[in-house]
């Protein structure tokens, strides 16, 4: 797993509504990346 101080790898992913988001689009402001297990499982 990546740790504090390491560079966050850039990526492009689809949004739920069909758009695209690149991490580097957010350069200049903080970003929170929340990885989580399957939706609706709660854990």
């Amino acid at each position: 797993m990546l740790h504090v101080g390491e560079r966050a790898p850039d990526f492009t992913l689809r949004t739920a509504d069909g758009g695209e988001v690149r991490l580097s689009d957010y350069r200049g402001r903080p970003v929170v990346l929340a990885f989580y297990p399957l939706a609706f499982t709660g854990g």
Partner: protein
Amino acid sequence: MLGISVDTFASAGAFARSLDLGFPLLGDWPQFAVSKAYGVFNEERKVNRRVTFVVDGEGVIRHVVDDPRDVERHAREALEAVRRLTAGDSST
């Protein structure tokens, strides 16, 4: 804020709507490329671990929450980290 799920787009959309999230929810399914790049993919169970990264404006990871049980802690610590980053940015 970005949320990354390994779920399908359809159910991720339903999930986002059910929570009325103010940020995009992204699908990393079915390749899990991003989850693997960040080292949070559980190969055995084929799901993400619950991990939150806070990335600063330069693209460097500044805070990590790795706790499978305490969901509240992820939101709390992420907010604190973003506030610290924003407060420490003299250009704004």
